[in-house]
């Protein structure tokens, strides 16, 4: 029992290690530029990893936010506008973080005030934010893009800066999640909200906290998005929303949240997906086949990590 539990816990990690091994083996065969490839992988994982790490707090509550991509986009656009107005990278950074936190806060407050399930709120917010993104492009940009000069962020577009941001935010979340009452109470809420309520843990309060922490990640993600590609369009961060969900689940996070929640799921998942994508490219798969293989591996890993299921009724 114990062994099995341990195995289930580390299955995503094993998955990542196998993918890394696969990457190097296949990369060797194909004689790819491994160093450049690793940089590529970091570049392509880091935004999702940061946003998803924050999102773990929301998932831990057993909630689900599908508007994260849109709020990353809105934060980035706002930050871009602020940069164009002020030409200050610092203010741009602050704006990204503040806007993201505010949006996140709004999400949780809406859910709290109107007693809507978080999921429904985020669906509504997704539409609102997408619309807002278009509006921002019209108001603050040319209608199709907001162009932060590349020179402004070029010095930050380095591997170490991205890893530093990811590392710092991850440590921050790791600390909150595993070494403070916040993380404990959130896991407890995710496990059984009713029991948590009767243990003096307020769902509303901890939802707000979770959303704020997540908002911080979204803000950082938005900033990193700008650093990576300073020309912002309606497609900016468009894939982040779904990538975050996939990464979290792939990293071994149960969608029902609770005690099995792991803060590192997001990072493992995000990097696993990137390695997997790169492997698909190296194997010269056309994007469709690549995506199908990815889907199959995703389902299989999640299935293995979910462990034994003996229920009489189907899960909902």
């Amino acid at each position: 029992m114990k062994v099995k539990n341990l195995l289930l816990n580390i299955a995503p990690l094993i998955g990542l290690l196998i993918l890394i091994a696969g990457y190097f083996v296949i990369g060797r065969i194909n004689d790819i530029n491994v160093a450049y490839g690793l940089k590529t992988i970091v570049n392509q994982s880091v935004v999702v990893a940061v946003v998803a790490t924050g999102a773990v707090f929301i998932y831990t509550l057993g909630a689900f936010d599908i508007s994260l991509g849109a709020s990353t986009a809105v934060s980035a656009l706002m930050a871009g506008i602020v940069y164009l107005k002020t030409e200050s990278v610092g203010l741009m950074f602050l704006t990204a973080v503040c806007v993201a936190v505010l949006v996140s806060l709004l999400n949780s407050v809406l859910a709290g005030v109107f007693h809507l399930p978080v999921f429904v709120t985020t669906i509504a917010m997704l539409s609102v934010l997408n619309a807002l993104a278009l509006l921002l492009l019209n108001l603050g940009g040319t209608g199709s893009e907001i162009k932060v000069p590349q020179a402004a962020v070029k010095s930050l577009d380095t591997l170490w800066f991205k890893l530093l941001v990811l590392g710092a935010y991850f440590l921050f979340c790791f600390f909150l999640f595993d070494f403070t009452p916040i993380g404990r109470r959130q896991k407890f809420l995710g496990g059984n909200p009713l029991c948590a309520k009767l243990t003096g843990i307020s769902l509303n309060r901890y939802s707000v906290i979770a959303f704020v922490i997540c908002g911080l990640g979204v803000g950082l993600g938005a900033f990193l998005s700008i650093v990576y590609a300073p020309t912002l369009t309606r497609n900016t961060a468009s894939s982040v929303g779904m990538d975050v969900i996939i990464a979290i689940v792939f990293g071994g996070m149960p969608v029902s949240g609770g005690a099995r929640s792991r803060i590192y799921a997001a990072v493992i998942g995000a990097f696993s997906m990137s390695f997997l994508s790169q492997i698909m490219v190296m194997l010269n798969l056309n994007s469709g086949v690549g995506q199908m293989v990815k889907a199959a591996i995703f389902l299989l890993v999640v299935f293995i990590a979910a462990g034994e299921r003996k229920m009489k009724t189907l899960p909902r």
Partner: protein
Amino acid sequence: MKKKLATKVLSLILTGIMMASVTACGSGADSSSAGSSATQTVADPASDAGTAESTDAAPAEAAVPGEPFKIGVLVSDATSAEALGRRHYLEDYIAKAYNMVFVYSDELGDSAGEKAAIETMITNNCKAILSESSFDRPAQIEQCEAAGVYYAVGSGALDAEQYETYKGYTYYVGSVGPSDATEFETGYQMAKYYLDQGVRNFAIFGGATVYRNSMHVNRVAGMLKAMVDAGGEGASYQGMTDPGAIIGQLMADGEAKTGAIGDVTLSGYLGGYDMDDAWFAKGAEMVQAPGVEVLLAVGSGSDFFGTATNGTDVKIASVDAYAQDYYEAMANGSLDYLAGKFSAYDGPVFMALYRAVNGNPLRDPEGNAPAFDIGYWISTSAEGCKEMLDLDGDIDHPVWTMEELNALYDADYAAFEAFVGDYAFDRIR
């Protein structure tokens, strides 16, 4: 002990998947290799060098002047007939003839996508990037310059300012595509064709004008200028008659404003590529609006609006390519006027990259990267279209063959320029 076993089983399963995926892709590639992806057809250029020449008849007879390598192709449009035609030429003619590998990106949607695609291509040892995606050209060029990978613009051009900035970059190879002036003229001629017939009510599909894409902006500006010229005394677009001013206004607005231009009416305008239901509804509403006689499209006119004009008298004129789809569209009346690229369009730009990677870069007399201008083939009837399609469509005998391109390998700037400038249908035929 138990744990070890379980770990083993798990890793076995996972390796199993990996293996399965490897084999699956192998077979998948075979079954779907109808010409989609060159990366599937030739895995390792170096080792396949001999076989490719002997097996594939027509193009491979001439000697290859340089060494083969991998080229990454960035596309923001992966599915239009125009894009497909050019991909067909590169993958099924050039790749075989020169033993090249072309790695195509997915359909790109923003500059982050472009950057990620370039990263992935460089990782996979692409020595050159052929970019047909223009969300952020400067970022692409800077990225390639930093990585030491050659970069060229295909079927397009840098705008003047960008060209000035990058023409001296070591790894910027240049561009082969319609210049802004050519684009303007293309739009002008398209509108003029109908204005001369007495048409007075138009709708315009402005495509990437909203992204300030200079190709599309110039096409639209040309159309508007033609209307201004034909609109009689005092006709103007938003008070402007000067091409430069019109272009500037379009760049500022990101769209053309509807209204009267003298006695010509611009009834409808649609831009962007949302391609969702609401967008299509808007498009249908535009072409079906009362009075509209002709839709002038910067591209994909019959693709997007063909069904909407079905059963109406509205004609569509579009900038596209010579492809079976468009011929059929012309034959059944859903397309009336076609300014089209031909599929060998990218031949010269390939050669420019090929030379650069092989240590023989082409520069203009001032030592800058070249920017070659190339125009369109225009047809206004199904027969004319058919003729051009027949010339363009034969992959074994493309418009620009290997022999012709080989001649460019050592050609000087003037010869190269002359070759590219000699694109007209009548001349090539």
